């Protein structure tokens, strides 16, 4: 008798649970139109392809700058970091900071593909990031400098040992001058200092897509951007390489940084 009774009450409890969960589901369904991120997260990819005009860019090939210099690159590396996706309504989705540092190298095509997982489903109309490394990370304890930020491995050649900070853009190569060629070296960094100010060459970039890009489970849109290394030498300042073939940590670094601020352009979506 007692057993039966408890079974009965167990059944009614179960029934109640089933009913409640069904209504809960209903409610969720009804609200789907209002809630902007109910679906499962998706992925998004960025492809930063080096190009000069309509042509692919290659290391070792001749290019003519705005100032008329004939140059060849042997290296073109730069950091992008602090990515934020701009939603249709203008709000931002910030990529978790520690998965938001990238070193893109002209001699490593894979490094030019950036892949974000776990992006809330929805429509996105643009992206923000910086060319360089933010000041907080530039002053972070060594243990927080992993991957492309590790001065000994990932960031080798992109870190100044005598002046805490990373080289944001590193371009090296040769430039023709009458009767010979000279080497050029542009190592542009400086994050503005931590406790006392220094030059700040961090460049914020915002790119708007030509359409709203939908992110959802099972879909992986690819945002294709073009990066023109020759932009280092034009707009706003037409820069003649033989006048200053080496610029590292010096006030002139600002000229090059101001120039490359617009070197990345959105092109199309796959």
């Amino acid at each position: 008798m007692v057993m039966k009774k408890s079974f009965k009450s167990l059944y009614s409890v179960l029934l109640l649970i089933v009913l409640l969960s069904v209504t809960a589901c209903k409610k969720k369904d009804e609200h789907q139109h209002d809630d902007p991120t109910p679906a499962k997260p998706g992925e998004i990819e960025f492809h930063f392809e080096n190009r000069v005009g309509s042509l692919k860019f290659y290391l070792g090939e001749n290019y003519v700058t705005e100032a008329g210099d004939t140059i060849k690159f042997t290296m073109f590396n730069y950091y992008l970091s602090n990515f934020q996706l701009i939603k249709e309504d203008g709000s931002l989705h910030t990529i978790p900071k520690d998965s938001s540092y990238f070193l893109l190298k002209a001699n490593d095509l894979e490094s030019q593909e950036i892949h974000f997982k776990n992006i809330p489903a929805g429509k996105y109309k643009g992206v923000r990031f910086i060319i360089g490394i933010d000041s907080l990370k530039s002053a972070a304890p060594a243990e927080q400098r992993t991957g492309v930020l590790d001065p000994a491995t990932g960031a080798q050649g992109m870190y100044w040992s005598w002046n805490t900070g990373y080289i944001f853009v590193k371009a090296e190569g040769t430039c023709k001058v009458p009767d010979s060629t000279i080497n050029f070296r542009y190592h542009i960094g400086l994050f503005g200092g931590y406790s006392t100010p220094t030059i700040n060459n961090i460049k914020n970039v915002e790119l708007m897509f030509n359409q709203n890009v939908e992110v959802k489970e099972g879909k992986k849109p690819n945002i294709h951007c073009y990066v023109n290394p020759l932009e280092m030498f034009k707009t706003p300042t037409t820069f003649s390489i033989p006048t200053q073939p080496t610029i590292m940590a010096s006030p002139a670094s600002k000229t090059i940084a101001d120039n490359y601020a617009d070197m990345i352009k959105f092109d199309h979506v796959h």
Partner: protein
Amino acid sequence: MNYPIDLINLRNQSPLIIGWLILFLLMSWGCKKNDSANLPTPKEEFKGFYKPNHFPDIQQPFDVSKINESSFLLGKRLFYDPILSRDSTVSCGSCHIQSSAFTQHGHDVSHGIDDLLGRRNTLPIQNLMWQKNYLWDGGILNLELVAINAITSPVEMDENLPRVVEKLKRSKIYPKMFKDAFGSEEITSIKMLVALGHFMALFISDKSKYDDVMKGKAQFTEQEQRGYNLFKQHCSSCHKEPLFTDETFRNNGIQQFFTIDKGRYEISLMEGDEGKFKVPSLRNLEFTAPYMHDGRFKTLQEVLNHYSSGIINYPNLDPLLVNKIPLNSQEKEDILSFLKTLTDRSFIQEKRFSEF
């Protein structure tokens, strides 16, 4: 020494097991001794980082809570190991000698690999956790990243980090030391730098007579007290107590043109920073001669003479020095007498920090 075996619980087991255990312990004890034959084993219990009561808050984000005896000993081993340099001739300790408060005694500028000379006078290593940045120009912001500068500088150790890591991996002793320090044999440059930081962060100099006076444990002599009063009147706005630096960059009028070395300007690239250098701490200055960023003054007397009569009115000269610091001979003697109370003999004799 902690063994991962609970001896008390084994008491009820057969005496044979205990016999084996004792044998094993004796053997491993023997092995340990052999392995660390080169390292002096501290007799006292390991004392980690501490903040002296009369010191301000630390300035570094470096995590001192992770310092343990093994990581400290690893840092010490690295600090005195010349394999950090390209040809195994120069260690950190070559230019940072304990008896000179970790400076390179007698050298105006530092003397590195291949007998090459740097541009600047070696700075002491002391009370590092209270600094916001390092070197005469403040170019390095993190304690554990300072060593990269010395290791990779072509006139200091002229080596690169990946090669150092390779050398450490090939060594017989380091993999075990890294395991003891960090829980895994994996050797990375970051761990190496952190271990060096664990060693150097404990270089705390807080036991000078001045400190004892501040703690109420001692009294200045009459002359020292006169010197202290003069010091507070003329010097302490830049050499701020109790660390004896306010961590700013200033031009103290030692030269008119800065062609070889522009100091802070080389880091900040800000106009007006030419010829400014970090105000150095005065602690242990009895051991750190010669003085100034280029080691131009051999004695403290020369330094005081500079401030009282030698200052050049350079455009970036610190406003506090425009009228020089008028001091008569007696006043200079008194100040010198006070400055010697900043000597911390226990620091330069501390066994835990010494090479041998």
